[in-house]
């Protein structure tokens, strides 16, 4: 039986649902000031339109001018989504309609101001916990919204890095909402941009945001994946699969094959790509087959110098990391979770199609595969 005090703690998550607002102390109430009001009137405001992953909204790598208040808006969407091309359906819960939620980019010292909307058409309360934010359960304590409500949260981006955000509405709802798709990432860039270990500025040409999700779809007696009418209907079966800790699918961008074939990512020889990888629930280990991480912020926090020349990097469950790579050779690259069972059998594979001139200095096929006889190998080679 669950320890009651722990249970209490997790339930308390949800008890603090209070919109994030500063008290307007009225004359008769103004006894002791509740909290000093922050004056942001001198700050410039800008509104960002979010973009569906794996892409990211336009942004400056080096901040122009003083810190500002950056406004975002996300609508929570509960909807059924296909998670492979075999018709397997998930009763998904999403930030802004995509799994993962959109990548947000700001600079250190900016204020992130998010309007979070829970439309009447949804069935459940939701909130948002930013790992990048300080206090209030990352904002979770201040943002619990019922269907038909919205809330506005503002937090100061004090630490540069890539961070996960996710829904955390209390108790067993927390892991369930997360594995139903409610996670995403925010990148807080240093005001003067990214640096290599020697402090030299580095730039990227493109960002690919890879959000990885472990999914737990229940099966019926015949071994077929079950389909449900609503998230609530899927709950108790799903929890049973979840508690086994073995996902039925491990996907990038919400679906097996979401980033392969026609949907493969595109790049060119000489282009520098920043791969941002988030996993809100479970450890993973990205690896670029045929490539490397030139500079890798494995834990995603830009105040730590990046590591060079990595083959595989580790993303702890509940974190986002960043890897910078310049493509040097054309071809197809597989970007995988290098637990190859998860990559190949469960879905955690993306492809990058890279155009350009082949470089024989880096690699050459000295001899194409040919049939061979004893004369070629000599007597020792085969019994």
């Amino acid at each position, binding site marked *: 039986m669950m320890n009651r005090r722990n249970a*209490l703690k997790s339930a308390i998550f949800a*008890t*603090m649902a209070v*919109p994030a607002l500063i008290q307007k102390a*009225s004359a008769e109430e103004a006894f002791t000031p509740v909290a000093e009001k922050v004056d942001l009137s001198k700050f410039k405001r800008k509104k960002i339109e979010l973009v569906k992953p794996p892409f990211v909204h336009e942004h400056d790598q080096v901040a122009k001018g003083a810190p500002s208040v950056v406004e975002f808006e996300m609508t929570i969407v509960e909807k059924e989504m296909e998670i492979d091309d075999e018709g397997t359906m998930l009763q998904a819960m999403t930030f802004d309609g995509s799994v993962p939620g959109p990548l947000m980019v700001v600079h250190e010292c900016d204020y992130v101001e998010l309007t979070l909307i829970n439309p009447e058409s949804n069935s459940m309360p939701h909130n948002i916990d930013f790992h990048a934010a300080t206090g209030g359960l990352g904002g979770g304590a201040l943002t619990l919204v019922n269907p038909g409500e919205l809330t506005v949260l503002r937090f100061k981006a004090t630490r540069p890095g890539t961070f996960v955000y996710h829904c955390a*509405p209390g108790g067993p709802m927390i892991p369930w909402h997360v594995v139903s798709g409610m996670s995403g990432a925010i990148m807080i860039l240093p005001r003067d941009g990214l640096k290599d270990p020697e402090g030299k500025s580095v730039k990227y040409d493109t960002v690919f945001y890879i959000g990885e999700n472990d999914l737990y779809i229940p099966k019926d007696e015949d071994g077929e994946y079950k389909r449900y009418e609503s998230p609530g209907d899927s709950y108790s079966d799903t929890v049973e699969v979840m508690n086994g800790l073995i996902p039925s699918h491990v996907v990038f961008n919400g679906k097996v094959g979401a980033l392969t074939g026609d949907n493969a990512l595109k790049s060119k020889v000489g282009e520098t790509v920043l791969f941002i990888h988030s996993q809100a629930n479970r450890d993973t280990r990205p690896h670029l087959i045929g490539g490397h991480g030139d500079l890798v912020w494995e834990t995603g926090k830009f105040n730590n110098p990046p590591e060079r020349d990595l083959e595989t990097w580790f993303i702890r469950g509940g974190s986002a990391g960043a890897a910078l790579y310049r493509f040097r050779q054309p071809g197809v690259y597989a970007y995988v979770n290098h637990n190859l069972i998860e990559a190949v059998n469960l879905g955690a594979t993306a492809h990058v199609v890279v155009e350009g001139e082949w470089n024989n200095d880096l690699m050459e096929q000295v001899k194409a595969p040919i049939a061979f006889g004893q004369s070629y190998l000599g007597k020792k080679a085969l019994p």
Partner: protein
Amino acid sequence: MKISYLFFVIGIIFIGVTTKVAFESNLDVLKLDSLEMVLVPGGSFMYRQSGEYLKDDFPIDAPLTKVKFEKFLEIMKYQVSVGDYEKCVSDGKCEPRKWQGKQDEKLPATGISFNNALSYAQWLTKNSDYVWRLPTDQEWSYVAGSKYVDDALKSDKVNLSISDRWLEKYQKYAEFNFSPVGKVSIRGFFGANENGIYDLSGNIWEWTSDCYNRTRLNASGIELNTTNNCGVRISAGSHRAYISSFIQDARGGGCSVGAPPSYLGFRLIKDGKRDVISRFLDLTRL
């Protein structure tokens, strides 16, 4: 022509017969053991409104209002038993319970979601002459009498900040820690209240029909608006718990607001006699 006329006559006779059968209560056949009722006379009490209240965007205690019941309330003496609930399950009208293991039929049914309790009430209504339904939170609180706990923070501090209130509320809920977890106990284990109703505020919380709501007041206390979320319902016990309607086991913490109940069960209110129209609609739904 003749044949269709014949079918028409047979049809009329058929409807007549089934109506007669269905209009007779099946309760004798079902032999349910949670049908002992308690009559609580009308009266009034001070009721703490459910849900959350925000005044000028700040959380405050819900208002305390005097609520009056003109009529008596008739409510089950004990919570619905495992055996009774299982009869609805084997009738195909209730969802099986999960994670409860093998239990004696006489034990109170636990692992019951709001939706499950609702199905049971509908099933029981169909099988009887009366309307059975979940109590409202007000009704439950009223009949619970001395077992009803006011869950307001009642802080004597002026102008609590968000974090002060948060910490105080945490402390308050930590006090609820006394609520006994333990095993599901035989009916009557937690004793009766002054109305003769057993096991109120024991380790099994009871579903009410109330939806979770959040009410916003302006600085002068005028109500601006309310959001109702009927996906989350109130489960009553030694404190109020707000739990998603499909949750059968809330020990890890329900959705939404409140400390987690140990077990989820229910008891029903017996309302007036069913009218002929509702019975007839039942038949057409068969």
